């Protein structure tokens, strides 16, 4: 059977090979590139919405010096893209020899900092390219996801950063600046990457839609905005996934919500309705159903939060009780507590608040 299939495969392939135009094969390959990579900004000018960084990087492109950099901000705002684009523009073909990129998937203990980073930074860099054009006389070490580096490893960087300042610039990228030790942070120029605004997100997404020739409802775009929370990468990934799933059909808001794992609003509403009945058994059955449907508790809490805040039925005091419990439950879930029990605890608190008022 397998042999049969294999020959079948070969047959179709040889047909492809007969085709003189290799462009078809290329196209086929391009189709599978994640759009996140495909639409990564190629040059610094393409970077959306982060003016301060762009100005600094552009100056350095025109020949002035570059400080050590520390980029921080929420995911999907373009931190990695920016520095990659900048170094590509700075070094051109020499990108491979002049840039050392380390991220959390690489081993980054104190030893690696001491050996790999140190040796790399000690190499001198000339100020001309092999083809004679001028280029900046330094190398760049990119430490992506620096907040997951150990404190010891960060400490080992301190002196290296200063000593090799003639030949090497460091660029640290992280989500939370508070996890970078103070001595490192003070050696860098800090740039905060703002969450992207809605119109910029829409503009980019529309651009991609036009490029890929996708039909996409306006509603679906709003859905993307809501689910992505300013994270462009997330939005693009969702868009691509939706396109793949629907394969050519129009993308609707429901598809986006489905992919993003958003719980339908009527589930939340009926949960609250169940709470109003003040019956433990009903509540238990309902929560068990939600769990069986496979909705993650963290998502449920997130949406419950939005709904409860806007509920007119509860007073401020009652809301604050619910919110406090919400926070506790969230923390417990992070610690790995059982979802069913935590949700039951939360819902029974909400139930109490609903029913206290009636008394």
């Amino acid at each position: 059977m397998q042999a049969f299939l294999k020959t079948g495969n070969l047959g179709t392939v040889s047909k492809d090979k007969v085709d003189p135009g290799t462009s078809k094969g290329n196209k086929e390959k391009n189709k599978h590139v994640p759009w996140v990579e495909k639409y990564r900004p190629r040059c610094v000018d393409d970077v959306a919405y982060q003016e301060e960084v762009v100005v600094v990087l552009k100056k350095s492109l025109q020949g002035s010096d570059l400080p050590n950099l520390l980029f921080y901000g929420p995911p999907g705002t373009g931190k990695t893209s920016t520095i990659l684009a900048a170094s590509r523009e700075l070094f051109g073909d020499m990108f491979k020899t002049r840039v050392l990129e380390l991220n959390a998937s690489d081993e980054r203990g104190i030893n690696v900092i001491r050996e790999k980073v140190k040796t790399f930074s000690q190499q001198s860099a000339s100020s001309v390219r092999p083809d004679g054009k001028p280029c900046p006389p330094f190398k760049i070490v990119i430490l992506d996801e620096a907040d997951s580096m150990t404190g010891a490893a960060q400490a080992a960087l301190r002196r290296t950063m200063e000593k090799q300042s003639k030949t090497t610039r460091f660029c640290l990228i992280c989500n939370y600046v508070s996890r970078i030790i103070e001595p490192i942070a003070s050696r860098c120029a800090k740039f905060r990457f703002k969450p992207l605004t809605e119109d910029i997100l829409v503009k980019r997404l529309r651009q991609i839609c036009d490029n890929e020739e996708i039909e996409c409802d306006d509603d679906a775009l709003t859905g993307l905005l809501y689910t992505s929370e300013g994270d462009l990468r997330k939005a693009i990934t969702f868009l691509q996934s939706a396109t793949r799933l629907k394969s050519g059909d129009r993308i609707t808001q429901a598809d986006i919500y489905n992919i993003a794992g958003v719980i339908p609003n009527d589930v939340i509403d009926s949960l609250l309705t169940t709470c109003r009945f003040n019956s433990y058994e009903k509540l238990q059955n309902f929560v068990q159903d939600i769990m069986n449907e496979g909705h993650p508790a963290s998502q449920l809490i997130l949406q419950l939060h939005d709904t409860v805040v806007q509920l007119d039925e509860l007073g401020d005091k009652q809301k604050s009780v619910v919110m406090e419990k919400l926070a506790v439950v969230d923390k417990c879930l992070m610690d790995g507590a059982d979802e069913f029990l935590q949700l039951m605890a939360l819902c029974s608190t909400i139930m109490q608040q609903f029913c206290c008022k009636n008394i």
Partner: protein
Amino acid sequence: MSLWVDKYRPTSLNKLDYHKSQAAHLKNLVAGGDFPHLLVYGPSGSGKKTRIMCILKELYGPGVEKLRIEQHHFTTPSKKKLEISTISSNYHIEVNPSDVGNNDRVVIQELIKTVAQVNQLETSTQREFKVVLLTEVDRLTKDAQHALRRTMEKYMSTCRLILCCNSTSKVIPAIKSRCLGIRVAAPSIDEVCQVLQMVCKKEGLNLPGELARRIAEKSNRNLRKALLMCEACRVQQYPFSADQTVSEPDWEVYLKETAHMIVQQQSPKRLFEVRGRLYELLTHCIPADVIMKGLLQNLINSCDGELKTEVIQTAAYYEHRLQLGQKSIYHLEAFVAKFMAIYKRFLEEGIADIF
């Protein structure tokens, strides 16, 4: 002779018994010959693994069913030796990184890199990527999850990841945003009944509708459990009768008795006896959180409305502590003691009200 669960596992996306529209979507997804990283989540026994294997088969053909078990050895930076077993075919490799506990990061880094850095030589006859299937992703340490992040992007051209977990609550957002999430809901009671009927028909057995329904309800919408229960019933008594007892696992019965003991009497002596029973359960490898949940289900039935809220809050509190702590018996016992105190107070108040 294999179990019914394995024997009647659907092997292609067309043959799936429920969530048909999702199956159609998945088929679309795979039809292009490629797919993004997937994050498959849902309660246990809902058919996550079945769907994953169907996808793989759709992609690579029947070759994926030729499985072999391999042992891999890794060394941590601190020179500790790790050993982990993987299940693999020519096209995919399945591994449960949480088997090695805290050192799962090393496994992720090494294993995925070795798989991903190998390019398929002849891309014309094969897919140009392999699949790495990671199970129980929700039990990965944060370190390991961070290690996954960039790896996922970097080796996109040679490797696809399929992550499988019960809930995405413990998966970091960075990973969620890189994957296409696929929610597999548990089958409804009716769907479980249908599957049971179908399996019995194929076995040449006659299953009364009522019994099927009872099994389905007892299984808590867990299809695997339902099928196993059904097979157990078959062994117990055939031909089936509609009012046949559906046997429960003996530890559940034991747990029920324990709960009954707690409700009967609240005293230090009883607590001591209960502790013995809890130890008994723990030494039989029943996970502590399952014990806690089982106890709660049984205890809560004998409580009044107001009391229920209080009990559930206590249970949630101690279950959280259980996850943080090291020795589970402390927390289980603390919960029992607390319950006794609450229950006793409630009873005494009740008596005081009467007089």
